[in-house]
Structures are given as C-alpha cells and as structure tokens.
C-alpha cells in the first residue's frame, strides 16, 4: 500500500502531446479511476505510472520514492491488461507464479501465495490448465490473480473488463470492488465506462484530450461537474444541455425562460449552456410547471424515459415508471433550482451556484 504522486507528468510522441502536465495525489489504499473517451490519454498516464512508457517531463513517486527513471519491475506495481496478456504456453499455476519466480522467492512461499490467490478468485480447479482452456471471465481472474500474488504497492488496471460481455462485466466489477476491500491496496483503474467509474471509484479523474478535466468523488462529479465536458460525459441518460443567454436576470432559450438560481453571477447577454439531468426534472403540477410535449417514450423497466419538448426546447425526462403516457400527450414538468447547472458557452466552465448538492 502506498501513495502515488504525479507531478506535472507529461507525455509527447514527437510533436503530438498525449498527456499534458498531470498533477495528482493518490492516497494510500485509494481506488482512483481514470475516466474519459478513447484517445484521451488514460492508458498513457497509467503506463507512465507503470514505467512502460517513458515520461517526457515531470516526476512520479510511489510510496514516497521517486520512481520516474525506474524500470517497471523496480516500481513494486502490478498491472492488469485489457487483453489479459496471460502467457499462453504456461499453465495457470505458472502464470500466477511467474512474477514471484523471477523475483527468486522461496518455492513454499510461492505455492502458498498462488494457492491463497486462486482460492480467493475461485481459480482452484483450473491451476493445471492453459489459458486457452479458460473462459474470458476466468482469464480475467487469472490476470487479477497474477497481480494479487505479487502483493504490490499499487494495482494498475487498464480497461480490465472491456473484453467481457455485459453481464460478466457487472459480476467482475463487483469482484474487483470486493478485492479492493479485502486487500486494501491502492488501485488505479482506467475505463471509458462511466458506470464502472461511478461504482468502483473513491475518486474519479476525468480526462479529455490529454488534460485532466476534474478530479472528485463520484457523487461530487455527478453533482457538480466542473465543465460542459464532464457534465455530458458523466451520468446516464446524458444530461440535457440547452444553449441560451442571460436576459433580464434569467436564462432564456427560445420560448423557455428560467430564473437564474440564487447566487449565480452572470453578465447580461452572456451565452450560457443550461444543464439539467433527466432525473432532476420533476413531473407534476406546481407554481412554475410547464407543459412537456412527449414525442418518444422509452420504457426502462423501473423508470420511463420520455423525449419531447418544453417551450420548443428538446429535453429528456426520466420519471418513475409511468404506463399511462402516450406519444403526443403532455405532462406538466418543473425545474428544481438545485438541479440546474450553468456553464459559460465559450469556455465550457461552470458558473458556480453555491448550493448544496441534489439529494441532500
């Protein structure tokens, strides 16, 4: 277990910069998830921590030790790869034991650790098999086990679940969460799947185009997205984003006028994007209710997602399961001020509303 500290870590491939100066402190035992779309530099950052990618500039410390120029094997990290990267011609036992054998560990100790990890991951019956003879989920477990037996200071995982089917992915997600609780080792986990990030992370690091966009606990990121990109990337179904401008102290877009939440400072005429999550639009009569004309209905089971228009503005509204709604019907909806997010259109930056988070 150890802290990981990144200071102005930068990576350039020739002229193109893949990662712009990342500063990050990862606490002892913390589960940090790098989240972002493909090509945003998540893997590159992780691989720099692992030592598989040379660092263009900056420093990396693990457990207070500067590892910037150290080989991967000297960093006391373990890595889980997206395609598992199991040694195909070695048995599962040998795969698990390999890293320990290379470190000249005692045979008995190796055996003890391999047995313990295989029990923990339910790999007991497969130890004599070759990777080819396992299912995807089992191979992923072996990959986790290979990291586990090493008892490293930090686990690094690069999209470990993306080769699995949806159902297995959920199961393995729970397993990784359990593993983290049991061993308590710091984990750095890369994914493009925001659900994985929300469910696993103590803290999420959201990246785009090689820049860190926001660092925060899952609900912090959900409640107070720092900019337009985070707002649209985190949350499912996606947040409604409506372009408009500040007029007479209110947000105005087409026929829609919404008073600015208290405490928001925005100059008259500023171009603004209003964000409101589909689950934060309330359905029902009220003093400020507006008619929502429904065009498309998606039944999700426990909930109903309706797509339609309020005063000519296209919106998605997520409500409790409603069997009665029909295409073309209208429901009264209102915007709760604590569910509104305002962003400056030009910079994408959040306009602070100094409010308590939704749900409190």
């Amino acid at each position: 277990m150890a802290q990981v500290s990144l200071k102005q870590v930068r990576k350039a491939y020739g002229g193109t910069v893949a990662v712009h100066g990342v500063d990050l402190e990862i606490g002892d035992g913390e589960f940090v998830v790098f989240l972002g779309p493909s090509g945003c530099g998540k893997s590159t950052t992780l691989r720099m921590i692992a030592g598989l990618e040379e660092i263009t500039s900056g420093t990396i410390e693990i457990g207070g030790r500067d590892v910037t120029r150290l080989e991967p094997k000297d960093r006391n990290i373990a890595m889980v790869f997206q395609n598992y990267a199991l040694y195909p011609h070695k048995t599962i036992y040998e795969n698990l034991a390999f890293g320990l054998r290379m470190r000249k560990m005692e045979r008995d100790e190796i055996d003890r650790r391999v047995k313990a990890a295989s029990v923990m991951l339910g790999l007991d019956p497969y130890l004599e098999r070759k990777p080819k003879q396992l299912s995807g989920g089992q191979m992923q477990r072996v990959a986790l086990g290979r990291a586990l037996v090493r008892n490293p200071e930090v686990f690094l995982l690069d999209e470990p679940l993306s080769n699995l089917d949806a159902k297995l992915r959920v199961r393995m997600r729970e397993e990784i969460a359990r593993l983290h609780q049991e061993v308590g080792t710091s984990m750095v986990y890369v994914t493009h799947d925001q659900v994985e990030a929300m469910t696993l992370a103590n803290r999420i690091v959201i990246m785009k185009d090689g820049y860190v966009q926001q660092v925060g606990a899952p609900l912090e990121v959900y409640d107070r997205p720092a900019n337009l990109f985070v707002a649209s990337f985190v949350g499912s179904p996606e947040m409604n984003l409506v372009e408009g401008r500040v007029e007479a102290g209110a947000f105005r877009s087409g026929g829609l006028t919404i008073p600015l939440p208290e405490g928001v400072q925005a100059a008259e005429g500023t171009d603004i994007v209003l964000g409101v999550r589909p689950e934060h639009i309330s359905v029902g009569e009220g003093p400020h209710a507006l008619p929502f004309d429904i065009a498309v209905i998606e039944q999700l089971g426990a909930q109903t997602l309706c797509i339609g228009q309020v005063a000519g503005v296209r919106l998605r509204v997520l409500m409790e399961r409603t069997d009665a709604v029909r295409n073309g019907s209208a429901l009264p909806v209102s915007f709760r001020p604590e569910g509104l997010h305002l962003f400056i259109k030009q910079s994408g930056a959040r306009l602070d509303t100094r409010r308590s988070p939704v749900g409190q």
Partner: protein
Amino acid sequence: MSSKSTIYSFLILGLAVTLLLIVAPVVYAISLSFYRMDSFVGTPEWAGLDNYARVLSQWEFWRALINGFVYSLGTIVFQVVLGIGFALVLNQVFPGRNLVRGLSILPYLLPTVVVVLTFKWMVDGSIGVLTNVIAALGLPPVYWFESPGAAMASVILVSVWMWTPFVTTTFLAALQTVPTSLYEAAKVDGTTAIQRFFHITLPMLKPILTVIVLLRAVWMFNKFDVIWLLTQGGPVGSTEHLAILSYRTAFSLFDIGGGAAIATISFAILSVAVFIYFRMFPLDTE
C-alpha cells in the same frame, strides 16, 4: 453436377502431373538401384541388392554420410542462431531500419554461382580481401580449399552466408505476431530481456521455428550446388556428402546402379529423420 466434375477433372489433372513429374522419376531412380548399369544406353542387368551391399561396404559411403551430417548440422545451427539474432536486432527501432531490413535479404536473392565466386575472390591467395585482412592481423594464412578442415568450414561459411537471411526474414515476420502486452506483462513480472526471449519469444515462435529448422535441414542435407562449385567434395573427399558421392559414382565412375543406391539410401535416411523430427516436435501443440 458440372461443378463437381470440374473439381474432379482438376484433381485428376493435378494427380497426373504429380505422378509424372515427381513420383515417376523417384520410382525410376529407386528401380535403377536394383540393376547393374554402366551407361544409360546399355541393357540393365538385374542385380538385386548387390548395389546396396557394395555401396555400404565402401568406407567412402560412411565418410560421405558423416560429412553430410556435419555439413547440415553446422549450417543449420549457425543459420538458425545467427538468423534469430539478426531478426531480434532488426526488430528493434533504429534509424534506417527498413533499409537494413531490405538489404539483409540480399544474399538469399543472389544466384549461388555469384555467391561462390564472390567468396572465392574474397579468399584468393594474393588479392583476396579476407586473405589480406588475415595477413594484416598477423594471423597465419588459411588454406580455404586445401586443408580438409578449412574446406568444410568454407562450405559451411558460404552456406550460412547465403541462407541465414531466409531464417532472419521468416523469424522477423513471425516476431510481429507476438502481442506486445505479453512482453510488458513480463517486464512488470521482473524479467530481463534474455528471460523474455526464453519465456515468451521462443515458446510463442516454436511452431514456426520447427518448420524453419525442418525446411533448412532438408535443403541442407540435399544441397549440391554450393559444395560442388566450391570444392567438388574435395580435398580428398573431406567435403563429399551423399549427394556428391552419388553423383560422382553415377557419372564419373559410371556405376549408375551404385549411384542410385546411394541416392535411395540418402532419401530413406532423410525420410526417417523427418519422421523422428515430427515425433519430437509435433506442430499442433503449444
């Protein structure tokens, strides 16, 4: 159905060509070994196993057999080891890599005669480059074709020079198929570059290596032109292997039956060796 009959007609045609061009000459050559013949025009005389008995009782035969093993083993070991070594070097990233990769195949593309003549010129007693380098280093002169040991070394050297590029090119192509994440996992697992070669590269490329070694072995065992052009089996038979002995017996000593018998024995030895090889290194396992 017409498509079926088309397939059959192609099949029959192919079989006929195979029969005519491959099976028939082999059968003919084998049958010659049971006859006494001193020219191709006379009437062959049935000899039973006489040719075999005679050939096997000659010590030249056993010398040629041993020479053949020395030559093919020597060339294969050096070709494969050097070939893999070059492939690993060419697999690294360095400026001008593509040019070097392209140039490295060159010796394989040259006609044997050109390579042999180049070598002869390089070791020429007075103007040879190699001769002069050896002299400049203060080493004693090497009699490339005059002393038996040096002659064997010469034919092995030239053969290795010619066919190492084949191994390099094949191995280099195969290297591209090994996922890089395996090497990365092994790096994290604490391996050195040499350990990665033995734990990942070699096992991953074992099937292709099995085929490379087999192909090279068969080719080297039957190789004729290099030795013939360099030494004609000399001096005093020190580089004469079965193919050359067979040729000399049939066409210089006009013992056609004996030559055929040698060729047949050589063929049989090779078949048994290939069979054993496949038993030892089956292709279908990891």
